[in-house]
């Protein structure tokens, strides 16, 4: 298929570093998809916060506070993904390296893919925030106790996101595949 061969020949003509840099653009784009998670979660918390203000208008300030506090935790994986995207765009540690350029390119894309894991933590933590907001509106006296359970559960929901961050950082900064 000479057209595909033409394309292949053309790309092989390119400076091999271009493959790594181009892959970083794709990786950064993929990482931003992670924002789905925090946004769904925070939106859930927003909905529950809104409902809670209607249920118990007297504790509106507390509802809004817990909604934002719980939502802030849910933002974590969105921030981590943004950081990985910014590293890929502005402080890419792979670009200066020499050697197996296709492994570096794959690692840049893979770092972005790994960050997608944060979708889960974002949704889950936001759900927890929403339930906490509603429950606190119904039982304001138990705010401390409820928040402790929310934070505990949110911390557990973060673990796979942390694993993914570690894998992304290894791929970018301490890539064992490039040493083989």
């Amino acid at each position, binding site marked *: 298929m000479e057209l595909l061969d033409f394309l292949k020949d053309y790309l092989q003509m390119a400076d091999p570093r271009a493959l790594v840099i181009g892959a970083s653009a794709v990786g950064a784009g993929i990482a931003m998809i992670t924002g*789905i998670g925090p*946004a769904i979660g925070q939106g859930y918390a927003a909905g529950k916060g809104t409902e809670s203000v209607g249920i118990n208008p007297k504790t509106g300030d507390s509802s809004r506070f817990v909604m934002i506090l719980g939502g802030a935790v849910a933002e974590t994986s969105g921030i981590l993904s943004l950081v990985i995207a910014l590293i890929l765009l502005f402080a890419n540690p792979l670009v200066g390296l020499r050697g197996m350029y296709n492994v570096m390119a794959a690692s840049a894309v893979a770092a972005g893919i790994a960050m997608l894991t944060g979708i889960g933590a974002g949704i889950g933590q936001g759900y927890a925030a929403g339930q906490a907001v509603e429950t606190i509106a119904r039982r304001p006296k138990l705010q401390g106790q409820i928040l402790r359970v929310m934070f505990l559960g949110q911390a557990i929901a973060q673990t796979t996101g942390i694993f993914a961050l570690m894998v992304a950082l290894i791929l970018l900064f301490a890539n064992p595949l490039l040493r083989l």
Partner: protein
Amino acid sequence: MNDSLIAGKALILAASAIGAGLAMIGGIGPGIGQGFAAGKGAEAVGRQPEAQGDIIRTMLLGAAVAETTGIYALIIALILLFANPLVGLLK
């Protein structure tokens, strides 16, 4: 500019177009989340019309929090399109 540089830059710019498109998929989240908040807001206003001000303020505050990752995605896409830091790395 030699052919090798042209091909390399083309590859990076093509990948940037795809990266910008991928980033916008992140907008799924704010859309779902804020829509949920909108639905709960409409429900709450129907039940306690007298608390309408507080309800809408809370809905909008929560929706603002849910917008952030959509903004991050937009910024990354705009950087890829209009202030591409990558294409300059290839000299």
